């Protein structure tokens, strides 16, 4: 297998860019075209793409990636409070800070592999969560969450004589980062992040990470020291998480400790596995599915279901509503769980495997329709 060239990558990127930027249009029919959900798609997309660099390539399953997400958010909000409402310093600092945390946690956790590695990362993330929740309340404001205040310093803004009346919003040189502008900012970063991940997947570095996944011992015997590669992958994916955390704060300047909870770490694992770990697009599909469920399914109620089944005869409609009601609204976790079970059992490679199977159907049909070429033609 030859390495795909930059040119092939560019073709993928053009398609990807078009798809992401036109998301508000093609998501409209399923009711997912409002700014907040679009932002969430893009932000958690970045998170999952980064997580996939570690899990998809090296096979190291981190159960503590939410810690970096939280670190990113807190750093970003502090940057808004102390430096400037401009999002660029916030994003840069958050990525750096998450990188530092990832280096420290990775340095220790990567001494072990397999389940021990997962448990170590989980333990570190829980430590971060508890610190943020109750020990470091002066920095994190505990359960209430870190928020902006009118009397924040904002040194850089003051230096340039920018003042705000009322509570300020995050800006990119004057463009407010809420609603659609916020989404496009996240989308551009998602595209850049995806491009970087694409290059990593197709680089010699990515190849070495894959080698670690397939057989680390053999790699060590050939003379490679695997530790630096693993640590680099861990730090890079931590920085992606930091970026995602920063963007959460950019689109909504508030950081809460629950972002670091183990459920948040578990969510990104679910997303990646649901979509297809180790594939490029898979994690993004997983993000789409989970966030769609969380935001749209959880909000359906009897009233809406009745409207949905209005085309059926009255009695049949009532039965349909009664049958579907437990699976929407409060029951959205149930639906998600069922879907997850079905995918893990029947499509271990996630949604991407399903797509590959569907794509293979025409080819199979063709093979059946056209008799196998005779040996004579083959010899020619």
């Amino acid at each position, binding site marked *: 297998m030859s390495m795909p060239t930059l040119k092939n990558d560019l073709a993928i990127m053009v398609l990807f860019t078009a798809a992401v930027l036109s998301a508000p249009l093609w998501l409209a029919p399923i009711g997912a075209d409002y700014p907040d959900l679009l932002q969430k798609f893009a932000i958690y997309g970045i998170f999952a793409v980064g997580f996939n660099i570690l899990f998809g390539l090296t096979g190291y399953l981190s159960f503590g990636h939410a810690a970096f997400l939280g670190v990113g958010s807190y750093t970003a909000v502090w940057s808004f409070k102390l430096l400037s409402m401009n999002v660029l310093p916030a994003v840069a600092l958050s990525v750096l800070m998450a990188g530092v945390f990832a280096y420290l946690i990775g340095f220790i956790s990567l001494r072990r592999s397999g389940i021990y590695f997962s448990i170590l990362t989980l333990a570190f993330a829980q430590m971060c969560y508890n610190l943020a929740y109750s020990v470091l309340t002066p920095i994190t404001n505990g359960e*209430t969450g870190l928020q902006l205040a009118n009397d924040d310093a904002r040194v850089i803004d003051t230096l340039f004589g920018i003042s705000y009346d009322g509570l300020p919003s995050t800006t990119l040189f004057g463009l407010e980062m809420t609603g659609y502008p916020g989404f496009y900012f996240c989308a551009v970063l998602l595209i850049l992040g995806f491009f970087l991940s694409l290059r990593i997947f197709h680089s010699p570095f990515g190849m070495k990470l894959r080698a670690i996944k397939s057989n680390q011992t053999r790699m060590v015997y050939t003379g490679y020291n695997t530790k630096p590669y693993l640590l680099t992958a861990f730090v890079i994916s931590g920085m992606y998480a930091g970026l995602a955390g920063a963007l959460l704060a950019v689109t909504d300047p508030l950081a809460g400790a629950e972002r670091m909870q183990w459920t948040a770490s578990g969510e990104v694992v679910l997303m990646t596995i649901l979509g297809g770990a180790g594939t490029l697009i898979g994690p993004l599909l997983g993000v789409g599915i989970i966030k769609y469920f*969380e935001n749209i399914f959880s909000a359906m109620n009897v009233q809406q279901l009745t409207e949905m089944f209005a085309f059926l005869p009255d009695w049949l409609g009532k039965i349909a509503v009664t049958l579907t009601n437990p699976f929407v609204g409060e029951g959205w976790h149930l639906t998600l769980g069922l879907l997850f079970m079905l995918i893990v059992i029947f499509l271990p490679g996630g949604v991407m495997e399903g797509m590959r199977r569907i794509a293979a159907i025409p080819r199979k049909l063709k093979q059946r329709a056209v008799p196998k070429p005779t040996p004579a033609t083959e010899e020619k």
Partner: protein
Amino acid sequence: MTDQKNKPGVSRRGFIKTSGGIAAAAAMPAFFVRNAWAEESFINNPGNAKTVKLGFNVPQTGAYADEGADELRAYKLAVKHINGEGKDNGLLETMQPLSLKGNGILGKKVEYVTGDTQTKSDAARASAKRMIEKDGVVMFSGGSSSGVAIAQQSLAQDMGVVFMCGLTHSNDTTGKDKRRYGFRHFFNAYMSGAAMGPVLKERMGADRRAYHLTADYTWGWTQEESIKSTTEALGWETVEAVRTPLGAGDFSQYITPVLNSGADVLILNHYGKDMINSLTQAVQFGLRDKQVNGKTFEIVVPLYSRLMAQGAGENIAGILGSTNWNWSLQDAASRAFVKSFGAEYGFPPSQAAHTCYVQTLLYANACEMAGTFAPWEVIKSLEGFEFDGMGNGPTLYRADDHQCFKNILVVEGNANPSSQFDLLKVVQEVPREQVTYEPDNPMFAGGDLGPYKV
């Protein structure tokens, strides 16, 4: 010339394609910004539509799910009454002054959407944004945690959509974190302190030593501060105030030191599951059977709720606390509400349900008074609104901080409940004057409501 094919770099075609894509994308926001040119317009203006939407954002999962479920029942009931579709008219019969006609709001039928806050600020804000951006609500409401309420209230200000707080008891909600677009009907920690002071003095005397256990977040902090200032004014001494992490589960390590501290009153600034656990453990440790400094050891739970009392079982017998409202009140409005809620669901409402129901009616009534859904006009008609017949006697929505001032209750755990709902006995209905404070009270200092138009 060298072969260009394998040289990495951007091809001309690729460059043109990409830049075209970016240009289209850059132009896109302009198509989506609604009403960017209209000056007096506001977000989610129902215009000529026949219906108007409200959003009810309550905890449906997690530690406060019971309370959230009860709040949702109350909201649904309020919508029925506003639309004139209920079995009776509920508090529309008793509210004074009343502008609502029982035909929706301003002739538009009320519809609602619901959401799950999961008792997390993040999830609550995401859910609220969905209601505002996708469903187009003109008002959203909900509660159970002050942290979550404060987070939603600041979102309300950012987006320009009114938020009617449900259950939130922290002073900060209408203190340092108050917002022009946020309104609170529920009472607060300061009021709990002011109401309980005289009762504590009468029952326990002026010479006591108090020990606080406090939930470590905005509500716990402000309640500890409020109760401390009340009890210290009585002449009590505060031995120590210990912060406990939220959701600790096991409080034994915090309760053991109380035994040897020389304190004779334990004040539990806990709520929900924390309160159930800490109170149960304190009773199991035998605190209430002890004699310290020649007095019987007492426990006080400043914020009580019937749902929590259910969880703590018989441990609550005789323990003092305060609530916003209780279903056993005998005024016409309370009876009407209990009757109407009971007819719909078969059991009496909680105080959370009461405050949420009242908030929905108040918002609807304010729109009717203003004659428009424009939020700044609705806010102006709520500010300084004086009303009666909602279960707490004459009530004022103060303009300075958007806090309601009304009678509140001091209650104690019922030793001999006559039913599974009859858990709290009203000790005193504390008059509004006793719990009123000046807007510049230091416990509420530092906030700013912000502008009417955002």
